């Protein structure tokens, strides 16, 4: 089992297997390697296009680093298995696409309620339903946010390139471990299947975060209690003799179920929200280009961010004062930053591969006097620089 303390052996293995340098690979593969560098040693999944290469890479690579791969009978079983494995101390991940992500939603809620660190990758494809199964899209923005039921916080990260997929997967694991929450990597089929050059670092260049464990028996008695004021309870792992009880039902700080006392539910669910709010600054991440003197702002995410940057660069050549904002953490949405930027501009353009999802989130932070316009494209073909540039010129 690979837990904290095994680093020297792991660094030796990683150096030997994946010497630092330039590699040519797909986004899906970069996600798998990112997970391995982050310390992921348990993967359970079910094949689905365009996420299958993540499973295939994990099946091939995990045994080399003493990690476990298991192909489950369905997506529901896959997320269930990684939650179970996480309670034994293994950093765990599953990957799927839209339909499989839908099946995982109930247990995603379970992971939120039980504060189980896991990483769930959704390599978005075109929908609804089977849609264009082999084509990329960005239609799961809100499924990631509100797919499971009840009031809950969520963290979702969206990479913009193959190399970014490697690093953002590591960041997803680190946030998940630090805050004891499931983190969603909202990737997409286009980057997932695109091959690019990426630089694999030396393992010592990679910052690895491990979940907090109870310091003593006393702390272990409160697997869901705010024992140190951080709002993040230490996680008493199974098999350590703590007799921990874990349930998806509303529970007291001891873990025992109590669905009858309103205060217990209110306190628990509010703490789940507050621990994310408190650490929002560490979770939020974005890229900004030319926002100092801009009159127009482009806000774009994931696969649409690069043609957006291309369009912004071309518009700048034409003398149009346009800036670009790319949220890398899409949930919680960096609304305060967008609000601040929105005050400087007369128009905001939101390119994305759907009929308008991120734009609704942006809209919440923009005054009515700002022109807000989406550049939306569905059908499985990515946005082009020209399509976005046309909109920039038009506003």
């Amino acid at each position, binding site marked *: 089992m690979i837990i904290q303390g095994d680093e020297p*052996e792991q660094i030796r293995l990683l150096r030997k297997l994946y010497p630092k340098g330039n590699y040519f690979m797909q986004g899906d593969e970069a996600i798998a390697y990112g997970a391995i560098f982050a310390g992921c040693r348990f993967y*359970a999944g079910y094949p689905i296009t365009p996420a299958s290469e993540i499973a295939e890479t994990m099946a091939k690579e995990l*045994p080399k680093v003493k990690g476990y791969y*298991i192909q489950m*009978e369905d997506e529901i079983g896959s997320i269930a298995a990684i939650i*179970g494995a996480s*309670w034994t101390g293994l950093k765990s991940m599953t990957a799927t696409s839209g339909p499989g992500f839908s099946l995982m939603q109930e247990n995603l809620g379970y992971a939120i309620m039980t504060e189980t660190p896991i990483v769930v990758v959704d390599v978005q494809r075109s929908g609804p339903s089977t849609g264009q199964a082999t084509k990329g899209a960005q239609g799961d923005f809100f499924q990631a946010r509100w797919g499971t039921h009840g009031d809950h916080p969520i963290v979702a990260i969206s990479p913009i390139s193959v190399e970014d997929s490697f690093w953002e997967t590591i960041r997803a694991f680190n946030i998940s471990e630090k805050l004891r929450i499931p983190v969603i990597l909202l990737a997409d089929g286009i980057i997932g299947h695109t091959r690019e050059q990426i630089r694999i670092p030396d393992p010592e260049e990679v910052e690895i975060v491990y979940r907090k464990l109870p310091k003593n028996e006393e702390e272990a008695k409160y697997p869901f209690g705010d024992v140190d004021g951080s709002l993040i309870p230490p996680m008493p792992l199974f*098999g350590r003799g703590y007799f921990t009880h874990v349930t998806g039902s509303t529970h007291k700080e001891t873990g025992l179920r109590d669905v009858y006392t309103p205060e217990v539910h209110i306190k628990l669910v509010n703490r789940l929200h507050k621990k994310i709010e408190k650490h929002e600054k560490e979770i939020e991440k974005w890229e900004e280009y030319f926002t100092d003197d801009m009159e127009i702002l482009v806000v774009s995410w994931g696969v649409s961010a690069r043609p957006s940057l291309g369009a912004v660069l071309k518009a700048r050549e034409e003398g149009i004062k346009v800036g670009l904002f790319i949220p890398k953490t899409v949930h919680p949405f960096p609304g305060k930053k967008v609000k601040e930027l929105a005050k400087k501009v007369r128009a905001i353009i939101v390119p994305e591969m759907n009929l308008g999802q991120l734009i609704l989130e942006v809209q919440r932070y923009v005054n009515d006097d700002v022109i807000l316009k989406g550049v939306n494209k569905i059908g499985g073909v990515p946005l082009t620089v020209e399509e976005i540039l046309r909109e920039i010129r038009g506003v």
Partner: protein
Amino acid sequence: MAKEIYTKYKMARYLRKEALPTALCPGCGGGTVLNAFANAVDQLKIDPRDLVVVSGIGCSAWIASPYFLADTLHTTHGRAIAFATGVKVGLPDKKVVVISGDGDLAGIGGNHLIHAARRNIDITVILVNNFIYGMTGGQVAPTTPFGAKTTTTPYRNIEHPLNIAEVVAEAGASYVARWTTAHVYQLIESIKRALQVKGFSLVEVISQCPVQYGRRNKMKEPAEMLRWFLKNSIPISKAKSMSKEELEGKFVIGEFVNRQRPEFTEELNNLIEEVAEHFGLGDEDAD
């Protein structure tokens, strides 16, 4: 075996006292199953620290989670075995036990049940079959006998019940047995054997639900249901020479299979060692 009469429940030391009293109805077979499980653990001298008990949703899911004092994982409806699969891979040296009901494990969770048996992962499943969805109010289950009345088959059940033990045995489990709550001592022995088998093991326990099943099927008293079990139980050795028609409505009890097959977590760890050897990843070349 000498039968002891207790004045105090000796097995209480295995229970999570702060979770008591149980939520089970008077006359429920769940208490018998919990008792049998605690006795099996006690007789095998298993340290509860070496046990992880996983369950799904419903009355039977409560039997050991939260009541049994071990690490307990109370999961979503039907998914206990899938959660347990992850736990077992992470803790291959611990005993991972799933205790849940027929609706949970064979209805919504039927797919996980047969695939865990096929995979032959070393998990012990105690499946409490009371023919009904008890906690949700007595609806028809995949195990409800043909013709029986439930809240969703108010006229009669027109579906045929699933023969769980046979299906799981066929799917590839290492050990499968079936008893009723009227066969407590045999049940304890089977749970002990299941806990010791390397591989997937299933003990199906036919159990009484006087409140939701018995009441609607002319067996209001728990004792009436136990008498029904005893009257209709056929040992598997005898059942082999009986026709399908003769076995209709009977409970075949005993051991269905007890065999050795390669076990999943062991194979998984062997594979890791083979891969390390193949790629020359051992410690010897650390420098």
